[in-house]
């Protein structure tokens, strides 16, 4: 492939690619993102290729592995174009039927369609599925349409036209102004105005400046950046090159966590392809702009997602954050002006250039413009990545898109913002997502993790969980974080084990203050948030644990006991057979009784007791009822003795 040396040549190439493609030709798009691959997508792709070959249809049908559209729970996801028929949870065994029914006879295979878990309604087309219907997928929508390993696919959907516009129709000042006018704010969590960040670096003294893509996505439960970088690496690259123009940088880095090997692979390939096409390197598209980019992998440290720690890691050191008294866009990587932005932030840039800042500013709210991709996971019917305009309410996201809570359970709280964020209860669900509203309520939007918790989740345990995570990930340099969080974890762990004492909550609040006010970096300063927000909205749970030794959610192992209700037990013997500790006494027609000394609280009996009996109960905060005497345990069918 020859280098492209001008904007006109780029358009020629694009036209050439499009003219070689028939939009009516069937295309089987199978999601090849990490999630679907884990569910067997590679085998499905191979099965399609084999079946198409077997049927002699290779000239008439395309098959490709695509980027992640975010509906991972129902994967492998297959979309048949041009009709956009969407099949979910496809297995290799389903492939011959799909090829004969849908490809050859244009008929739909009903059993593979999306089914709404509450109404039972089915949806044929991708755009009918309620999960997708209520989203505004301006960024992630392209993923299912392209093979991330093909630069031609990206060019076919208009890729790199924004870069050509920037290089030949705009000055770098104009590019900066456009981004400023759009009011784009960083998507990594802090929400800093992107235009201002770029401007600071552009005006800072120094010849050498850097631009960095932060793809360290460490928030557990968040995988937006994975899907974007794996599924559409060129969109991120294009945004980065445009940013480099605006700032005056000629060298860039993409820092990807090594837990995302597919993303590393796809972006490395994308860079190679872009270099071949003359979209990276010297004289990009024949202009006088040079820019190169390197990929660096993370090595397993959440703290490296913090911008100064990331830069320290790029310098080949341990990822210890540095003070931000002088901002890193003035003195960052190797003390030079550095613009670091999140993957999603960079992905927004080509859109803003192509469609204009005014178009972008129409989406969203006054202070939060554009869309945001959230990873909606946990106790929710439709799990996956959702892209919505800023300003949509939490309620709409959770119920209209997410389909509500499964198994008839009650919603309890939504956790947003990762370990730095907080939990919000039901009466906060009408808050609009954006940078400011959630913060006022004691949580934050963060990078987009949105974890739904139901009535079975213990909020004290959630706070403990996040503090355990942060204790493990703390770099350990400063006292407030290393020592303060460690003590908070100890106290919370004791509380969940029934060893909480009066004064614990007050001590936790004191430790929270030290971390918030005096820690070196944002990891330490925001660490107490999970505790503070759960204390604010679920104080009763804390008090129950400490004062009554009771876990209201019936979750904390040391505070619950399992009990078989003798009125309900039908002696089916399932639980006694499955109990791994052989702690259940009973046999046919003998009411079962749990030996509390042997019970390890694994919960197996609770899960296997047939729902029509529901004889196993969890008790907390009260003594276990005395076991009924041996003589009374025989069940006489027809009438039961007690």
């Amino acid at each position: 492939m020859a280098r492209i040396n001008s904007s006109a040549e780029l358009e020629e190439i694009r036209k050439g690619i499009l003219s070689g493609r028939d939009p009516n030709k069937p295309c089987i798009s199978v999601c090849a993102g990490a999630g679907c691959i884990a569910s067997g997508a590679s085998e499905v792709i191979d099965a399609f290729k084999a079946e198409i070959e077997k049927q002699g249809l290779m000239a008439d049908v395309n098959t490709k592995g695509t980027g992640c559209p975010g509906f991972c729970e129902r994967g492998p996801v297959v979309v048949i174009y041009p009709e956009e028929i969407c099949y979910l949870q496809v297995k290799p065994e389903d492939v011959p039927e799909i090829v004969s029914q849908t490809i050859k006879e244009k008929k739909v295979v009903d059993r593979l369609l999306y089914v709404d878990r509450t109404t039972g309604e089915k949806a044929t087309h991708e755009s009918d599925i309620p999960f997708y219907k209520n989203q505004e997928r301006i960024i992630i929508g392209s993923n299912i349409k392209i093979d991330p390993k093909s630069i031609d696919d990206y060019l076919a959907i208009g890729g790199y036209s924004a870069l050509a516009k920037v290089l030949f129709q705009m000055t770098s000042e104009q590019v900066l102004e456009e981004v400023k006018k759009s009011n784009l704010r960083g998507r990594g969590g802090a929400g800093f105005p992107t235009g201002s960040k770029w401007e600071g670096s552009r005006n800072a003294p120094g010849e050498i400046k850097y631009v960095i893509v932060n793809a360290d996505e460490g928030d557990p439960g968040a995988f937006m950046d994975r899907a974007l970088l794996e599924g559409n690496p060129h969109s991120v690259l294009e945004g980065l090159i445009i940013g480099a123009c605006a700032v005056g940088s000629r060298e860039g880095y993409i820092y990807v966590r090594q837990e995302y090997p597919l993303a590393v692979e796809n972006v490395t390939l994308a860079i190679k392809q872009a270099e071949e096409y003359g979209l990276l390197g010297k004289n990009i598209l024949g202009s006088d702009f040079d820019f190169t980019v390197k990929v660096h992998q993370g090595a397993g440290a959440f703290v490296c997602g913090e911008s100064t720690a990331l830069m320290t890691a790029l310098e080949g050191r341990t990822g210890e954050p540095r003070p931000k008294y002088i901002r890193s866009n003035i003195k960052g990587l190797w003390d030079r002006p550095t613009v670091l932005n999140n993957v999603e932030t960079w992905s927004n840039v080509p859109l803003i250039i192509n469609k204009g800042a005014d178009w972008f500013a129409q989406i969203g709210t006054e202070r939060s413009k554009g869309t945001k991709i959230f990873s909606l996971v946990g106790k929710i019917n439709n799990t996956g990545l959702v892209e919505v305009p800023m300003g949509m309410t939490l309620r709409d996201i959770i119920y209209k898109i997410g389909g509500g809570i499964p198994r008839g359970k009650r919603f309890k709280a939504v956790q947003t913002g990762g370990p730095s964020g907080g939990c919000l209860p039901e009466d906060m669900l009408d808050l609009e997502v954006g940078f400011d509203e959630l913060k006022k309520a004691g949580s934050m939007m963060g990078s987009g993790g949105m974890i739904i918790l139901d009535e079975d989740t213990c909020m004290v345990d959630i706070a403990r969980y996040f503090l355990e995570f942060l204790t493990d990930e703390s770099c350990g340099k400063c006292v407030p974080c290393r020592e303060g969080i460690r003590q908070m974890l100890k106290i919370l762990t004791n509380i969940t084990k029934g060893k909480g004492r009066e004064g614990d909550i007050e001590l936790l609040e004191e430790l929270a203050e030290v971390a918030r006010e005096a820690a070196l970096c944002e990891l330490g300063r925001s660490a107490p948030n999970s505790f503070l927000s759960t204390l604010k909205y679920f104080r009763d749970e804390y008090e129950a644990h400490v004062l009554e030794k009771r876990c209201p959610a019936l979750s904390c192992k040391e505070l619950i006991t399992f009990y078989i209700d003798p009125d309900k037990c039908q002696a089916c013997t399932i639980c006694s057979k499955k109990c791994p500790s052989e702690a259940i006494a009973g046999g046919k027609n003998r009411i079962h009784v749990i030996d509390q000394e042997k019970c390890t609280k694994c919960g197996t009996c609770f899960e296997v007791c047939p729902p029509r009996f529901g004889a196993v109960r969890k008790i907390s905060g009260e003594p276990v009822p005395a076991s009924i005497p041996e003589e009374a345990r025989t069940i006489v069918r027809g009438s039961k003795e007690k």
Partner: protein
Amino acid sequence: MSEIIFQIDGRQVAAREGMTVLEAAQKAGISIPTLCHYEKLEPYGGCRLCTVEAEVRGWTKLVASCLYPVEKDLIVRTRSEKVDRIRKMILELLLAHAPDALELQNLAGEYGAVKDRFEKEPSFCIHCGLCVRYCAEVKKKDAIGFVDRGTRREISFIPEIASKECWNCKECFPLCPTEALQAAFVLAKAFAFPSSSLEHEPTE
């Protein structure tokens, strides 16, 4: 270098551009407690004991004075209820690891820190980093470094280098605010000596 005038505890203080608040305060004879600071080394910002209130353009924030650069019209308060609470807590957290360290006990007295606030975990090292930084920045031998992260972080000698350099140096020993450094050296000595590079105990 231009001169910058700002306030510390109600007093006007003059400083050069590029100085930190701590440097300026020390020059003016105003004391701010520190543990990880040493004038021969780059400021570290690890102990956070030097935290002060810094007010600029009406906004007050807490900053580590050993790293915060001086600026015009800055108003600094080295003591306040909040600052004192934070220093007390930092000391109490450290006393759990090094309850008998003299420096900690002196400071504890001034801020009312209670030795038994937290359960003791006598690892003795308070991670001030003075030993590591001195060896790296002043002696340039890198015989001792940090390992691991978070609560598992520790200081560790490289036995091959320590066996060659430390016996005749030991300049970092008096810097250590607790007994930790000597303890680590003794341990490394036990593993390193006799090593293949040493046929006999070197004489002092």
